[in-house]
């Protein structure tokens, strides 16, 4: 009995989120339109505010997409499409989506991946994971982010590294997929990590399964977000 109630509640939430996402897209579309039509007609501080509003709306959209995807993955109705893709292309697209805001904050971001790397994954899900990782890095880095990919031990390893203080020891000792990150006072919901580890686990090849890990160090000695796909 309990279970059916849970199910109908999550169905209800999912359909509301779908609706919210549509409204949000119309808002973002209009804001982009404003930005486009008025960028040479208004002062720079108004433009900055508009840019930040679009960024916040984008963050909201990312969260809604994650919740909706999790709902669909949970019910095995996500249209998953694991196919061979250029790794560089996906990394570059993720950077493209965040370029203006990074530039605005003076963050230098580099992509480090051989163009000859092709791998099997769902473009939208992995893109979503990386956008989320980049958002985190954006919040914690001083001024540098590196997004790199290589093939190690027959698996694809994608790393998002920053030059911030790194993850606190408490987080490194926990499983990242545990929902312990929820903290209403800091605004950290843990949703991003949960989503990311679910997506990692959706990628399977033979006996192997994708994993998400976090560590400190990397090229800049800061936090590292590591997605490994078989």
């Amino acid at each position, binding site marked *: 009995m309990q279970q059916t109630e849970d199910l109908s509640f999550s169905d209800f939430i999912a359909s509301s989120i779908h609706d919210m996402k549509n409204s949000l*897209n119309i808002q973002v579309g209009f804001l*982009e339109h404003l930005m486009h039509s008025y960028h040479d007609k208004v002062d720079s501080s108004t433009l900055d505010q508009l840019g930040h509003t679009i960024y916040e709306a984008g963050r909201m959209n990312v969260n809604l*997409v994650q919740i909706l995807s999790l709902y669909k993955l949970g019910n095995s109705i996500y249209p998953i499409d694991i196919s061979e893709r250029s790794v560089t292309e996906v990394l570059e697209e993720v950077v493209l989506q965040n370029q203006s805001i990074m530039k605005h904050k003076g963050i230098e971001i580099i992509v480090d991946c051989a163009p000859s790397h092709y791998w099997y994954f769902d473009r939208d899900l992995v893109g979503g994971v990386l956008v989320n990782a980049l958002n985190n890095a954006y919040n914690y880095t001083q001024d540098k982010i590196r997004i790199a990919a290589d093939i190690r031990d027959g698996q694809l390893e994608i790393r998002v590294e920053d030059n911030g203080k790194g993850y606190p020891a408490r987080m490194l000792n926990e499983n990242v997929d545990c929902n312990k990150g929820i903290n209403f006072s800091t605004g950290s919901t843990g949703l991003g990590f949960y989503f990311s580890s679910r997506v990692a686990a959706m990628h399977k090849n033979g006996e192997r399964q994708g994993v998400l890990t976090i560590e400190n160090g990397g090229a800049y000695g800061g936090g590292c977000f590591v997605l490994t796909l078989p």
Partner: protein
Amino acid sequence: MTISLSQSSTLVIDDFQSMRSMIMGFLKSMGVTNISNVGTAREALELLSSKKFDLVICDYNLGQGQNGQQILEEARHKRYIGHSTVWMMVTAEKTMDMFMGAAEAKPDDYLLKPVTEAMLSSRLNKLFEKKRTLEPVEKAVKSRNYAHAIKLCEAQLATPSANTQELQRIKSDLLINSGDFATAKTFLGGLLAVRNIPWVKTSLGKVLYLSKDYLKARELFEEVLQENKMYLEAADWLAKTLDALGENALAQSVLEKAMALSPNATQRQQSLADAALKNGALELAQSAYEKAIKLGEFSVHKNAATFAGLAKVLTVQDDPEQALKILSRSRSEFKDDAAAALQTAVAESLAHYKLGDTEQALVSLQEAEALIGASEQDTSVGTTLDMAHMMFQLGQKEKACGLLESVVRNNHENRSVLQRVETAFEDAGMAEEGLALIQKATKEVIDTNNQGVALANEGKFEEGIRLIRKALQAMPNNDLMMTNLCGMMIGTMHRTGKDDRMLFEAGELLERVSRINPVNKKYHQYVTLLGKMSATD
């Protein structure tokens, strides 16, 4: 010739004016100058039919009426757009039909909202590059030079690229369409050994199905669905396979589950209705046909067979009045469509007869006879069998037997069709007589064919051609006869030189063969030979 992005003639389809002007703004700053825009599906199709576009950017959800997917299907179906047109779907949410199923039904790519200029530009540039690289392959496929197309695919596949999967799919489809199942099996098996990929496993299942290895095909389709229940293309093939295995009830339940997961698939809804009718699940058949009619309203898959199917269910369920109402709707929806008129007339005859109105039943039947005689189209076996049934009912035994014989002659190698003809004879209470007629008709076809082959072997092509041409009048849909006639024409031309009229006739025959039996083994060989022959002076 694929042109560059900035030179391309572009159409933007979105129901929101602000979205259209935003995307047009993006395009302008990419250097695109030739841009049209529309807000509804109707306007979009009107424009697509009258003007050539190199790039279409289309919103998936357009409110009332057709959605973006249905516009794409109709535009491809009616050849408003060709292989070189880049179709980009813009959508709030990813759906299966954007990357699954037949190439004709898929957009080149989709972009999730919100759309930014950087993303749009990056994707479009890549798509134009991809079109350029694949152009030689598409050209070879279009001119039906499959062997050459396969060679081109293999050359490009030698180095991994962004097109690898596309090339693998094209190569696999070419091997399957040209009936080279052994090579297709090796190729797909090789891919599967490296990684378990749903489309590869599904394609291998298709090869097994087409080689009539139904048990192994079933196993593969079931595996795909177990691993990924949203991969519904595998469900469609599993249903077909179960049907071929005689597991009709299971086929129906597979389609029912698939419909629950993806409720807007018109063709699958029709398949479900047909399966339910076959199983005698009349209530389900009725509701499935009704849904299929509703779904098909804005689709190119709108089909008179759906209306005829619903009418048949209603007739069987003792509601022939309602059946006639549906059929009169079908008449007005499919004006000037001879094949539709034939299906409608046959279903009307069944309904009138059920009402006890023998006179009207006869009138409808006569209309059907006139249509089947005049029809250039290939009439479905189901419609022909229904017609024979009515002839028996109305005491026209001889005509019915003649019609059933023609079904046998046209399908003498198709066991499931022969089985249905046998059942039709049994239902008319002439099982033994029917069996003898089936054997006689089959023997006639085989004898004529052997005679033709013998004449060809002696080099008497002209005589062979006369014989088969005459025989084809009695069995216009027999693909074995058609390919043999083609072979003899090619033989004649080898000896006496190219003849434009013969080339044309042979080409038309092969077109029909590929429609009637897409996996005819000689089809590919003859298409290649004809292609070479017409290229010489």
